[in-house]
Each structure stands twice: as C-alpha cells, then as structure tokens.
C-alpha cells in the first residue's frame, strides 16, 4: 500500500514537470510515453496520479484541467486579474492624423469633420473620431444645418483635465504656435530620452512572447 503511494507520488511529480515543460495539453498516451517500456505505468495508474496531482493543486496559482486533447496545467482564473497585467501592451502612440484632428477640434470648435478635412487637406478616418469620442476628449455638441447634418465636435472637460488646463484659454494662441520650433526641438529631445529609457525594457518583453 505504501509502495503504491510512493509510486503515485513519483508519477505525479513527473507529470507535473512534464506538463509545465510542455506548456500545452498532453494526452494519457503522451504521458505514458515518457517512460521506458519496463517502467511505463498503466492507464489506470496514470489516471490515479493525475487525480492526485489535481488534488495537490488546491489553493495554488494553477490547476489541472482536462481539455479535448488531454490534460493541461492552467493558471487559475482567481488570479487572472493580476496575471493579465503581465500582458498589458505598451500603449501605442497616437498617429499624427489623430493629434492634428484633436488640435483642430480644440482650436476651431465647434467644428465638423468636413471642416477638419478642409483644413488638413485629407480625409479624417472614422477610427480617429471614434477614438477621440471613446477617450472622452471630444463630444458632439450639435449638428450643422447643411446637407447631411454633420456633427459638430468640441473638446470636453476631460480633455482639459488630461492636459491639466483649467480652460482652453491656457492653450497658446495660434499666433504663438508659429514660434513653436523651439518647443519642437525641446520635445524632440524629450522623446529621444524617453526612447532611450524604454529600450532596456523591450527585450525582456519580447522574450516573453
């Protein structure tokens, strides 16, 4: 009896190691194939060891799951919230088109998409508008009385809060934007250092994929 217990224990340890090394489901036969002919466990013993493994995972960060192609170890849903933070994607940068659209809405509000397109000289994708609406930086404040009744966009309180402004007045007047080249250089420099700071983190992230 005690021999039997030892044997189950031994199989269970090997199965746990194999399932973790595989990182994918293994069938009963694949698990049995880990052994040479003379030490291969019966299906029954294999199942008993798997049951024992399952029980031993109680209260841990992972559990044994049976899926179509066999058994696999899976991170428990109870810790998914924390684990998901591992995979948070680095926020992408917004496109230049989006920033131009946002700037025009801020400075020329209320403004329609058609008017933005007239100034930019290119069309504004629905995605950009949707992103700005979803982020709650702009909202529709009415419709212009022209064919199609296009929506007029304006910036929101959230927009002001995000950029730490108490009112739009705190944005530099258009006339000053002409002298932005100095600010531009400053920003370039800042972006540069940011990129450099970000670099070391990147390989590790990549390696995880």
């Amino acid at each position, binding site marked *: 009896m005690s021999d039997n217990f030892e044997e189950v224990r031994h199989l269970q340890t090997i199965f746990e190691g194999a*399932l973790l090394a595989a990182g994918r489901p293994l069938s009963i036969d694949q698990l049995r194939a880990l052994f040479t002919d003379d030490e291969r466990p019966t299906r029954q013993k294999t199942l008993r060891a798997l049951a024992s493994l399952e029980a031993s995972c109680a209260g841990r960060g992972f559990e044994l799951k049976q899926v179509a192609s066999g058994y696999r170890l899976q991170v428990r849903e109870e810790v998914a919230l924390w684990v998901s933070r591992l995979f948070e994607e680095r926020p992408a940068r917004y496109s230049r088109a989006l*920033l*131009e659209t946002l700037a025009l809405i801020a400075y020329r509000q209320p403004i329609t998409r058609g008017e933005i397109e007239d100034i930019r000289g290119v069309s504004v994708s629905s995605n950009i508008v949707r992103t700005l609406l979803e982020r709650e930086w702009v909202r529709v404040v009415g419709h*212009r009385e022209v064919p199609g009744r296009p929506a007029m966009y304006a910036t929101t309180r959230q927009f002001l809060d995000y950029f730490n402004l108490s009112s*739009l007045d705190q944005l530099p*007047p258009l006339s000053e934007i002409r002298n932005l080249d100095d600010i531009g250089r400053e920003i370039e420099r800042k972006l540069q250092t940011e990129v450099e700071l970000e670099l070391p983190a990147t390989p590790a992230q990549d390696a995880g994929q």
Partner: protein
Amino acid sequence: MTDHSTGPIVEEVAASAAPLDSPLARVSGKALTDIPKDLYIPPDALAVFLDTFEGPLDLLLYLIRRQNMDILEVDVSDITRQYMDYIATMEAMRFELAAEYLVMAATLAEIKSRMLLPRQQVDDEEELDPRAELIRRLQQYERFKKAAEDLDDLPQAERDFFTGSAALPAMPTQQVLPDVDMGELLLALQGVLRRADLFTSHQVERETLSTRERMSAILAALANGGFLTFESLFTPEEGRLGVVVTFLALLELVKEQLIEVVQTAMLEPIHIRSRSELTGMESLRL
C-alpha cells in the same frame, strides 16, 4: 608532403575532436563516422578537417597536444613541419584555406629561421620575440577554447532544464491608452496649419479660444432641443470679460447659423435655441 605524414593526423582528429555519436560528415549522402585510414583521403574528409579546426591556433594546439607537449616546450621546428604538411595537403587538394592559415605558416617560418641564426644579445629595443608571442597567443586561445567547452557543459535551457509554463485562463483585457504630450499636440497643429497656410487668415486669429470654448458650451446646453433664456447663458461671477466672451460666442453662433435668437415681443425675454436641434425636432414631428 607525404601521405605518411597526413594519415595519422586525420586519424587522430577523428578520434579526439569529434563527438563519438555523431557522424563527422556525409560523403555522397553516407554518414562518415571515422576518417578513412587508407592512403587515399577523399576530399570530403579533408573538408571535415577544415571544419574540425577553428583556425590555425586550434590546429597548432592540436599538433602540440598530440605529442603530449607543454605549450611552453613547443618544438617549433617539428610543429612547423607538421603544420606545413597539413597546409600543403590542403593546397594540393585545392581547398580554399582561410588566409589566417597562410599567415600562420609565414609566422612559423619566421620563427624557425630566427632560431637557425646565431642568437644575438637582445637589446631592449628589439621587438617581441615571435616565439614568445606565438606561445602567448596559443595559451590565450587555449584558455578560451576551454572556456567555450565549460560553457557548453553548463546546464542549458530546453536541453538540461525546462522553464515551467501553464496555459492562461480567460483574462480581462486591459487596454492602456497612449499618453499625449501637450507639445506633441501643438506640433501637430503647427504642421497642419502650415500646410493649410492658415497663419495668414485673419479669421483664425480674431477669435480667442475662450470664445470658441463658450460656443461649444452654449451648443451643448442647447443640445436637448429646448429654449434657454438669453440671461441664463451669462454668469455674473465671471465678470465683465466673461460676459463679453459669452456675447461674442453668441454672435459667432448666430453668424454661423447655429443658433436662433427669438423674442416674441419687445421687452419680452430673449430666448435662444439651437437651429440644428430645432430642425431635428421639427423633422421628428413631421
């Protein structure tokens, strides 16, 4: 060169340098586990030869070790002869030897010739003894050859040990929104304005941002389609400037035909409503 001198080299290389379980090479598709011992050496085996050594230093080390010699006690004449035999064999077989092998041959020849000359008292100015230099390089190379072997003996991921990983459960998706810098925003604006050549437009410069902001606020307040009294749009706490801004905003909205100002009779309250919402309501009624 003679076959006699190359034969043993080939044999011993096969015995010492190659892992026993893996074939040395494939000759016409057939695995070659040891190099033929007969006089004829197939060219493929010599190619294996080239692959077996990591360069002239490696070959020299092999020749030295084969004789159980300490590097410091190298018999340069003997080693040079063996080395030259090897080079000659390769050349005879028209194998392209890396230039390093030929450079080494020249170095060895120089050392040998120096040793034939009567040794003069060294003065300090003289350059490094080429034999000492060679020995230093051999020692140095041997150290790292050994270090590479040690490295290969270390446990390696997925060969000797395995990292554990488990499948993921269903996970909440978390979206992280990009950050935007005010500077970026202004640069974008500058770009678009430059393209649109709006800097010269008087219209753009005349309106202050607070007016445009107020225009949006008024439109938003009227968005439900109802009337607002003229007075309710003004906030006395804002002072004179606030009143002026609101008034300019109303004028601009009227000019752009976005709002309608209604007064039913003289001295009656003035009401404002959004033209667009009005149309919307009316079209609904229809």
